[in-house]
């Protein structure tokens, strides 16, 4: 069976990992209540999406 000839150095390993990045979530302002929410999701604060009430928040 084939095996690696050399141990991957810390440098090479870390260079590979430079592309592992976290991306910021896409955020939008709720058109109903103005609260910040995730885009393409119903607003957890007021329960509105696309000008329509989807659910009534508990509190």
């Amino acid at each position, binding site marked *: 069976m084939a095996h690696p000839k050399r141990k991957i150095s810390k440098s090479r390993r870390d260079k590979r990992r430079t592309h592992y990045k976290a991306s910021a979530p896409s955020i939008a302002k709720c058109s109903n209540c103005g609260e910040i929410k995730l885009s393409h999701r119903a607003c*957890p604060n007021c329960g509105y999406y696309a000008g*329509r009430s989807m*659910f009534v928040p508990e509190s």
Partner: protein
Amino acid sequence: MRHRVKGRKLSRTASHRLATLRSLSTALLKHKKIKTTVAKAKETRTFVEPLITKAKDDSVAARRHVARHIKDKEVVKELFGEIVEKIGDRAGGYTRVVKLGSRPGDGADMAILELVDFNSVTDKKVKTEAEPKAEKTTKAKKSEQPKAKVKEEDVVEAEVIEETKEETKAEESVSEETTEDKKEEKK
């Protein structure tokens, strides 16, 4: 490649998946609005919509076809009556999926699946302000019902399996012995 591969498996066997889709569809037609994961909501959509289309034709055959999947007779009645009446001339697209974000606990993407012509949200708002306790109890029922239905189906399946097991046991033991013999030969 996953070219032309339709549908989602939902981490279930075929029978379990069918049972899930049936109970979700029944719940949707009963309550007009259900909260599930995005995957289940989208998959249920492709399951109920043809049933609703079928229900536009008010014949005994169509009723039986729908009743094959919707096990609640009251719900079938309601579908052929109220729901079809409200849907009217709409040519498909009877449901709406609105994403809600991830569920605390397992991070599953949640969504609301609802019948488009039943915009009961505004009505609900009035109701919740008047009697918030009644709202909660209906929600609890929602979660209980589909589970119970899945269990019923499982029981039926289990009985069938038990019957067939006795027959196949003899065959299985023979085949197991032959495979073991082969293994020994290989060694």
